[in-house]
């Protein structure tokens, strides 16, 4: 009797956990399925290559795609070297329990938790008003060229936001490089930097790549930090200077879904745009997951 009760309890308990997992997976399927089925019909060559027309109720999203790519490219150029070198410091130079290393780690953890809208405020206050405004005042005699929303400021704001992503992935990759490699290099007379540059970093490239991909995927999806630092509702031209404004996929989605004069007419384009952004981030994330699982298998084998 008691045994039976235990069995039933166990069955219910396990059933609940299975159910919760299924609910989560089902919700993901619901979100993705809804967007794919509604957005798929919209994808066409014209959609990818044309600019929005007739108040965003017709045409394509080329400027938004172009802007997003330019934005994350600039961001990557800024964040990857900085993130990789910080990880090198944490794993190769710092003593694990030194105060400095712990402080950097706390800062990285906290940076990852700062709300994205606060990054937007920071970008506006620091990059646009302080740095950009400073350049205008000192070098251009007050003419406004840099002290306004621009792609360079938006990408630098995103670089600060994605810094933790790159640092964490790179550090994991550095941890996976066997110590024997470093010792072999030292034994042959290699200096610390030579060892890092010629042995450790080349072996960490997959991990660094994972971090960069995750950073790009994160950066491409963030809207709040770029709303005030450079993204524009609509631009008749593509950005071609660092201080131009730009259109961006995520912001375009936000604008179309909340400020459209005719929601029903915008809907197909809107779904198409959401699908493009979702595919972009999913492909990037899948790539990162694949590379990382490969690294982890290799790591397990090395042990």
């Amino acid at each position: 009797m008691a045994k039976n009760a235990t069995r039933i309890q166990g069955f219910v308990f396990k059933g609940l956990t299975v159910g919760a997992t299924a609910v989560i997976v089902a919700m993901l399927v619901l979100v993705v399925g809804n967007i794919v089925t509604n957005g798929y019909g919209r994808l066409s060559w014209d959609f990818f290559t044309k600019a929005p027309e007739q108040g965003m109720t017709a045409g394509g999203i080329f400027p938004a795609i172009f802007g997003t790519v330019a934005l994350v490219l600039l961001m990557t150029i800024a964040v990857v070297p900085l993130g990789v070198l910080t990880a090198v410091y944490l794993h190769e130079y710092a003593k694990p329990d030194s105060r400095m290393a712990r402080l950097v780690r706390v800062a990285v953890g906290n940076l990852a938790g700062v709300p994205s809208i606060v990054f937007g405020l920071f970008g506006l206050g620091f990059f646009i008003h302080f740095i950009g405004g400073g350049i205008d005042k000192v070098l251009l005699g007050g003419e406004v060229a840099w002290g306004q929303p621009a792609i360079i400021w938006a990408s630098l704001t995103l670089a600060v936001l994605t810094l933790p992503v790159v640092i964490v992935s790179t550090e994991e990759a550095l941890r996976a490089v066997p110590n024997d490699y470093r010792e072999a290099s030292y034994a042959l007379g290699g200096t610390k930097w030579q060892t890092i540059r010629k042995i450790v970093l080349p072996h960490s490239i997959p991990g660094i790549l994972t971090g960069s991909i995750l950073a790009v995927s994160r950066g491409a999806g963030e809207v709040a930090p770029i709303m005030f630092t450079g993204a524009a509702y609509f631009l008749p031209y593509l950005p071609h200077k660092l201080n131009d404004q730009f259109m961006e996929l995520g912001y375009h989605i936000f604008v179309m879904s909340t400020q459209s004069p005719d929601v029903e007419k915008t809907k197909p384009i809107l779904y198409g745009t959401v699908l493009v952004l979702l595919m972009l981030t999913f492909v990037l994330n899948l790539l990162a997951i694949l590379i990382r699982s490969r690294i982890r298998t290799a790591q397990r084998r090395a042990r």
Partner: protein
Amino acid sequence: MQSPSVVQNKPPGQQLSLVRRRRGRIREWMIERFILLNATLAIGAIVLIFVFVGKEALPVFTSPEVKEEANLSEFFLPQRYGPEKSPDFIWQPVSQRPKYSIIPLIVGTLKATLVAMLFAAPLAVAAAVYTSEFAPNWVKEIIKPTIELLAGIPSVVLGFFALMVLASLVHSIFHFTFRLNAINAGVALGLAVIPIIYTVSEDALNAVPRQYREASLALGATRWQTAWTVALPAALPGVFAGMVLGFGRAIGETMIVLMASGNAAIMSWNFGESIRTLSATIAAELGEVVFGSAHYHALFFLGALLFVVTFVVNLSGAAYVERLKTKLTGG
């Protein structure tokens, strides 16, 4: 170290290599400094965020003109907005008599966060228990990347989904007057929070030593009894830390609530009404505000408030995770 006399006795070729070695050592030193400088950047970023958001929020305390419109008592205390009206909390910065009470915004933020946590925490923790205690390996290989994909959905896409699809679903179930309300925003927010709670809880469950479970099984406990009475309690600090981190994400999340909550600053605890959160207020109003006005500084004050709250929440969450790790690996 070599003394100078030794150096002088060496043949010229070797002396050259010594010079080169010294030059190499200087280079190594410079590289090390450069990398250290780089590492301070993360600290610098946090400090700069604090300083620059704080700097723009400061006039709320110091500038007489700004204080006339927006000050601490306007923010937090009930105000009388007319001779015969009773004291009230209203956020309405653009009007004849600007009103800056942030209490409705805090209530809105808390309502959305509460719904998100009530929705996300049980699901995420139960799924973590399933993955770490019951699931066969091949199921794990599917669930983990799936939840990572969920984490990878941009918040603007979740906001869009909540606005277009979820809102209709919520409406057909609850029949609230307002299509966009706290429940709708909270559930969408929960979707963003689930991966965080799941990941941290799962890590915590995996960190529970295998011996605990083996001892329990050897004493005749079933697998679910082991999971419920041994593994989960041992991992509880980690599970709690995951919830704290999820909470931090939920209060700061912007795009989802901006699109799915209705954005009406209403002072009520009715979950069927529209809400306006702190983050959405900044996002919606900063674009149209006059640079340097009281409204501008008030929005930065909201940002500083968000920053400080999430900073404290994340710091305590991280500290919990850290303590758990040392307890389980070192103890």
